[in-house]
């Protein structure tokens, strides 16, 4: 287990400013304040830090997009909405090392020329918001954050905002909308937040872990960061592993760490000594891996990409060999159906239909064309929505069906019975075995659209 970001996180006293300061807290911020902002951006750029929230976009590059005009207010928004199923790394960081998070926010704000920053936390993290608010009060009382931070002449105001329960608020423009007091309907890009963000002002949205990395980088240098990880995947990554493992939890690993070593070592192997069936490596929005596919991989952006999936948020969900993959997929599909914000028709309707068809398959009421129908609904969502939620909802459906097809086929009505039906004189296109998928969609819609049942 690497000890770069989390080296102080095991000490509960780390939440208190004095302990944190002894462990080096805010040295990175101090270093940043001694440099012009563009040099801070250059240092982060040189480190190769990529966004840790899921998309993996280079952080230095994101910061360099800010070109504020006279009279504009620049905002840094820290995304602590962590809602990707199976992800709880920011939970861990905020709970255990809140000053590291605040330091990262301060550095990010300084680098982009912002004097205002918000930390937007999901409503369920209200107890963590208290921890963070207490740390912020201490840092403000010590004149580290506030007007004239550490006597540098730089002013910064940080506000913690709690959400109220909606996955889509973790999408950066959804977060902005929510913070503005609107429904969190994502916005069409361009214009990007760097140009028209919060209250139409230039805005950067960064994940908690990304900013915490920035704090370490400013304290210890880009080179020390690059000592960890591999070429294009620099640094360490917090992996939150859960599901069928003996030791679920948050572990910091070097990027490039062998996946199986992690699973058997840190995660303690599969629960109850069972075999591995599948792994979702980066939250439910990325394609699933079979045990065979996962075996040779390493935990980094490139290796995951080579296997057709993504490191994403590092929310690793492990499935033991006793898992019913269709059942598990239904649970995931229901999540997206529930969390689709409703702004774009393909996602609002499609996620509902995918859950609906899976539910009927599992209830023994599947129709012969149902697997094709599921995949086609997915095709009609992907690429046709404003934000990534729609695309994300398709990844599990497509990858589960493709990789565990026999389990899904076993739910379909048996063709032998269909022959028997025909011999009784029923038309082949009636009843359970009848309508091809397109007709099934329409007739089902008459029975009752999936949205009514959700």
């Amino acid at each position, binding site marked *: 287990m690497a000890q770069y970001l989390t080296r102080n996180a095991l000490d509960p006293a780390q939440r208190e400013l004095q302990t944190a300061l002894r462990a080096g807290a805010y040295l990175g911020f101090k270093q940043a304040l001694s440099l012009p902002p563009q040099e801070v951006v250059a240092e982060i750029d040189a480190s190769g830090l990529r966004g840790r929230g899921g998309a993996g976009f280079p952080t230095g590059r994101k910061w360099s997009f800010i070109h504020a005009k006279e009279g504009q207010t620049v905002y840094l928004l820290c995304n602590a909405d962590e809602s990707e199923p*199976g*992800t709880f790394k920011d939970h861990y960081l905020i709970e255990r090392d809140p000053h590291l998070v605040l330091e990262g926010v301060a550095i990010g704000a300084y680098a982009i020329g912002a004097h205002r920053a918000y930390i937007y936390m999901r409503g369920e993290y209200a107890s963590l918001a208290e921890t963070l608010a207490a740390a912020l009060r201490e840092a403000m009382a010590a004149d580290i954050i506030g007007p004239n931070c550490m006597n540098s002449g730089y002013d910064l105001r940080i506000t913690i905002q709690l*959400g*109220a329960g909606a996955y889509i608020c973790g999408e950066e423009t959804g977060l902005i909308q929510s913070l503005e007091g609107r*429904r*969190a309907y994502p916005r069409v890009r361009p214009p990007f937040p760097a140009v028209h963000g919060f209250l139409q002002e230039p805005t950067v949205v960064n994940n908690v872990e990304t900013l915490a990395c920035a704090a370490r980088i400013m304290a210890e240098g880009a080179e020390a960061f690059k000592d960890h990880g591999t070429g294009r995947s620099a640094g360490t990554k917090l992996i939150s592993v859960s599901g069928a493992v003996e030791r679920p939890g948050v572990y910091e690993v070097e990027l490039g760490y062998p996946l199986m070593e992690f699973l058997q070592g840190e995660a303690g192997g599969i629960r109850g000594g069972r075999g591995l069936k599948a792994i979702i490596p980066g939250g439910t929005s990325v394609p699933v891996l079979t045990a065979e596919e996962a075996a040779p991989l390493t935990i980094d952006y490139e290796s995951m990409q080579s296997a057709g999936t993504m490191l994403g948020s590092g929310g690793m969900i492990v499935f033991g060999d006793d898992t019913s993959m269709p059942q598990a997929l239904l*649970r995931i599909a229901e999540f997206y159906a529930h969390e689709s914000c409703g702004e774009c028709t393909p996602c609002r309707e499609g996620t509902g239909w995918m859950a609906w068809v899976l539910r009927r398959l599992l209830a023994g009421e599947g129709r012969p064309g149902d697997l094709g129908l599921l995949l086609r609904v997915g095709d009609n969502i992907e690429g046709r929505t404003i934000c990534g939620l729609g695309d994300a909802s398709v990844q599990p459906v497509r990858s589960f069906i493709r990789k565990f097809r026999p389990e899904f086929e076993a739910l379909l009505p048996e063709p032998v019975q269909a022959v028997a039906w025909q011999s009784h004189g029923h038309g082949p296109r009636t009843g359970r075995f009848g309508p091809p998928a397109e007709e099934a969609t329409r007739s089902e819609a008459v029975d009752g659209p999936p949205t009514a049942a959700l």
Partner: protein
Amino acid sequence: MLSKDALREIEAARAEEDSPRHALLTALRVTQGERRQVGPEEITYIADLLGLSPALVQGVARFYDQISATPTGQHVLSLCRGISCYLCGADEVAAAVGELLEIRPGETTADGRFTLRLVECVGDCDRAPAAMVDDRFVGPVAAVAIDNLTKM
């Protein structure tokens, strides 16, 4: 309708930005906390307070799962139904808790103490099956005796 503390919190949010809408999310949260619902009366009240239209306030209120249109019980017991919790027996836990409280998800106990909710991933997957009593994480539920949950 709201306490002085609640009004102060809303006022603080309002002072943050030159946009009355910005305070709406905080106003909804604070109101839900004190009134245990944001129904028609609360919506009119918040709209007046912030100078927004009631339709706008309602539209935003109904978007968020934690803002309730009808009163919740004294406490909200949220059981996570996320994929990780599902893999750790969340369905069985939900059934057992429902039986114990004699209610179904979304309902409130007859004595008004508990509202039971099944919620999507709460980000506490290492303590699966995860659960929350109001804002407190109390998982794993299998380890906490289930009837303990209702004594909190």
